[in-house]
């Protein structure tokens, strides 16, 4: 156990354990997923290192988690709508990775912000103006070219920032970031390959990629105000647009303030769908 390693003991009186025990007959203990909720940071050290501002740390975690959960919800909207089954599976998988990151980040935020809130409190019981995601994440899915272009930009941006956060003084956030970097590398690669394929494809796919870049460009400024990673993201965009024969988008001054809770009209309906079951049955367990 190094100092940076984030793990301590918790007792094991956990809902899943009793479920598994009930089925334990010496063979595989099996039960369906979705039989209850769990703490994704179960058994991880919950202390905040000296010199780390707990409120600031919680805010950092919530911003990253909100970007992830809103992006995951948009990606999930491609289920049954993607051009091919393989792409639907890919987009859903990317969403699942982001959802996993969000769960860990919300759990960390709840540990350090003094409220002791769980992940569900953040995801299901906050309103649109409490969310801190950047505006680009909440825009409707558009066509496949737009979703790919957005994924390229957001995954490059998140990857560049999380690479830095992997050295954060909070070992839990650092560990979440280090893990997420590996996942985001796959997301960015997937988006970049599709962007090249579409940009360098037919006249129609090229036209749609140009339109998608035009739609994304106005939201780039907000990203670089939030995280100082413009160099890395612009380099990726340059590489992809060159290979795809597409024009390089310009980065306008920041527009929008998702990080201050000022959102487009698109976030509230997204959250309404995401939160409807949890809010209809707030104490439900199954």
């Amino acid at each position, binding site marked *: 156990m190094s100092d940076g*390693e984030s793990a301590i*003991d*918790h007792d094991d009186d956990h809902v899943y354990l009793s479920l598994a025990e009930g089925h334990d007959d010496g063979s595989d*203990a099996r039960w369906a997923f979705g039989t209850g909720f769990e703490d994704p940071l179960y058994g*991880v050290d919950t202390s905040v290192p000296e010199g780390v501002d707990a409120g600031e740390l919680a805010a950092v975690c919530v911003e990253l988690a909100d970007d992830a959960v809103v992006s995951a919800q948009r990606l999930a909207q491609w289920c049954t709508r993607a051009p091919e089954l393989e792409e639907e599976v890919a987009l859903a998988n990317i969403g*699942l990775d982001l959802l996993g990151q969000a769960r860990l980040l919300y759990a960390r935020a709840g540990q350090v912000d003094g409220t002791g809130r769980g992940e569900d409190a953040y995801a299901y019981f906050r309103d649109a103006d409490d969310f801190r995601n950047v505006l680009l994440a909440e825009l409707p899915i558009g066509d496949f070219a737009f979703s790919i272009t957005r994924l390229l930009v957001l995954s490059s941006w998140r990857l560049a920032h999380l690479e830095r956060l992997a050295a954060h003084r909070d070992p839990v956030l650092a560990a*979440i970031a280090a*893990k997420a970097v590996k*996942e985001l590398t*796959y997301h960015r690669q997937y988006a970049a390959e599709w962007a090249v394929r579409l940009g360098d494809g037919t006249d129609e796919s090229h036209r749609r990629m140009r339109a998608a870049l035009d739609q994304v460009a106005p939201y780039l400024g907000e990203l670089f105000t939030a995280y100082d990673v413009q160099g890395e993201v612009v380099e990726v965009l340059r590489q992809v647009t060159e290979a795809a024969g597409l024009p390089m988008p310009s980065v306008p001054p920041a527009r929008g303030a998702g990080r201050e809770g000022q959102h487009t009209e698109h976030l509230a309906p997204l959250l309404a769908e995401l939160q409807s079951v949890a809010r209809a049955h707030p104490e439900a367990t199954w």
Partner: protein
Amino acid sequence: MVTVTAIEDVRRARGIAERVPDPELPMLTLADLGVLRDVEMTADGTVVASLTPTYSGCPAMAEMRAAVAARLRAAGYARVRIRTVLDPPWTSDWITPAGRRKLTEHGIAPPGAAPHGPVVLSLLPTRRTVPCPRCGSPDTEETSRFAATSCKALWRCRACREPFEYVKEI
């Protein structure tokens, strides 16, 4: 002889935890997969098993925790604790040689060496050779970078025409 008993006890507990199958790749044990990071025993006789998730969103973590605890309790260990270890993050390099052999035997191609160093985007055609786990032919192609679980990609063999899954390097 307390010390010797304790050492034997923790060794036995480790053996039990190591043999728990992975919920999504049941031909592998948690030890084969490399997600069981440690099994220790505290002074008061509590068995502490440390697990690490493969992917952030891996839905199998809860079942892994439950299964390890249930197996240990069934083996007579009254006090069991499970820890989640996030650091260092899991890498497919931790899949053991035995685990790789079992994957191949079950028609799943094992991962190559995980990438290290700076994360650079490459748009050059990837010439990764993944031999078909069924017929061994190197004439294979990727059909999807993502598959039925987070850790796998979809491939197909041009020689025997069979699709197969491939555990991704991470």
